């Protein structure tokens, strides 16, 4: 469909309506939150960002989210490959499983972990503390962000024609080299897009973490847990400030998503 100038009153009404809705729905609240963060002035806001427990919360969030991204990238790529290229009984079942974290309440994921690894859990006692400690938070983040890379890479893998890879094999390239030089460039954009989505989801995770981390302030608290705690502490500047910072991360993620999405769309046949 070709773009046209908006001339008719219908067109203008539509544009205003659509933009107005978006403004009411999230642009205005976002601005309100930025306003709230600065409500008591710049000083308290800066103090928030220098608060050791805030810094620690961000460290925890970013480090564990990054680890979750690494895990989900390596294992997710493998899974996408296996789901597309292998045929075995039960493959369709496993394929449908991938969507589960998307619709599974994260609270339940956290609670399942407690059932498994908690004090009287099925797999207790674990070698090292899992629940109410960092490994548990990591598992939660891996779980909630699991589907994205797989679902982004799968269709691209499916659409690949076999010729380039076959050609590589016939000239003696190993599987790994073929993957690295023939397949990876093709799926790279989709993979990056999936990574960005995974990272966003892992950072934003709250439900499972709230159940499983014990929310030990300055220790297992994540950035989102901090926001929740700050609200309860009547520390509105802290809550809004950290929220705004999280939104900044989101905006960076957004820009990345947008750039990659544009490349994906333009790459399509």
């Amino acid at each position, binding site marked *: 469909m070709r773009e046209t100038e908006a001339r008719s009153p219908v067109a203008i009404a539509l544009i205003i309506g659509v933009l107005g809705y978006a403004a009411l729905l999230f642009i205005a609240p976002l601005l309100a939150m930025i306003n709230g963060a600065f409500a008591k002035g710049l000083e308290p806001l800066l103090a928030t960002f220098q608060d050791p427990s805030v810094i620690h919360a961000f460290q925890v969030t970013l480090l564990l989210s990054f680890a979750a991204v690494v895990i989900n990238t390596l294992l997710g790529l493998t899974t996408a490959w296996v789901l597309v290229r292998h045929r075995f009984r039960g493959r369709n079942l496993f394929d449908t499983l991938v969507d589960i974290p*998307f619709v599974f309440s994260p609270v339940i994921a956290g609670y399942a972990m407690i059932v498994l690894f908690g004090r009287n859990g099925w797999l207790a006692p674990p070698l090292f503390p899992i629940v109410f400690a960092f490994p548990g938070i990591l598992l939660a983040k891996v779980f909630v962000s699991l589907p994205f890379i797989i679902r982004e890479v799968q269709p691209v893998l499916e659409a690949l024609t076999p010729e380039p890879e076959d050609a590589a094999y016939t000239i003696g390239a190993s599987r790994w080299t073929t993957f690295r030089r023939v397949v990876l460039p093709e799926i790279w954009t989709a993979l990056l897009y999936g990574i960005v989505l995974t990272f966003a989801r892992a950072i934003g995770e709250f439900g499972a973490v709230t159940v499983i981390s014990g929310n030990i302030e300055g220790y297992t608290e994540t950035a989102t847990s901090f926001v929740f705690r700050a609200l309860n502490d009547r520390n509105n500047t802290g809550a809004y400030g950290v929220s705004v910072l999280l939104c900044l991360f989101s905006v960076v993620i957004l820009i990345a998503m947008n750039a990659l999405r544009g490349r994906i769309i333009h790459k399509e046949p």
Partner: protein
Amino acid sequence: MTQIPLSYPTGQGAVAVKRAQAPSFGAWGLRFIALTYLGAFILVPLIVIQVQGVRFGLDVFWQSITRPEATSAILLSLYTSAIMAALNTVIGTLTAYVLVRYRFPGKRLFNMLIDLPFAIPTLVIGVMLVLLYGPQTPIGRFFDTTLDIQILFAVPGIVLALLLVGYPFVIRAVQPVLLQMDFSQTEAAQTIGASAWTTFWRVIFPALRPAIVTGALLSFARSLGEFGSIIVVAGNIPMRSQMGTVYVYTQVEAGNLQAASSVSMVLLLIAFGVTVGIDLLKWRRHA
């Protein structure tokens, strides 16, 4: 190819396995890794939930999901998610249409902002909404005193939060389809004198319908599991403003693991049924 980040069909459309010789260990190794990954992270929690749900027998399971609070929570989730999906369908389609069809200042920025609900933590979404529409804000007070509608901590607030969370789904499902739409058909319709509305309804809309349905169903399924924003904006009164996910959370915190598991299973089955439905729709289209 749709740009929704989920649910693609596999199987029949898949490319044939490589013909070159590959060490079978490698293939099995990969398969093992992939299946262990999925098994550990997805199957295991599912099994845990199921076992916890039915551990006292099926009659107790049935009881725990037919308790008034449980049923009410599940129904509230379904009801609010459905309203949200319906609203989102209309608004999302129109938004996608506007984005593709017209030029206007700020369009690129707007297009980028559409994904914001994907990227922001859900808890922050809830905080944002309370800040602007809460009972002590001008807007919240206006609605409360003048129109006697309580936004936050009541059903409208829940729908509002879900609308925010589900905002990008329909838009991003419909956009690519519109972008690749064959322009000649609409032009043809207009040369024979069809109005803009007729053109839209008769020519464009039918082609969009599968994408719209997919997007709407996805946002519906997503809402059933939504927690972070709801916990901040909903009132949590059992049987009045308690959503399924919050009910599950309360039961977990209250130590009623069996009740939490059974209601989770119900919510999960419904949401899962919806995603399978989406997959089936795709199968039909590709077949």
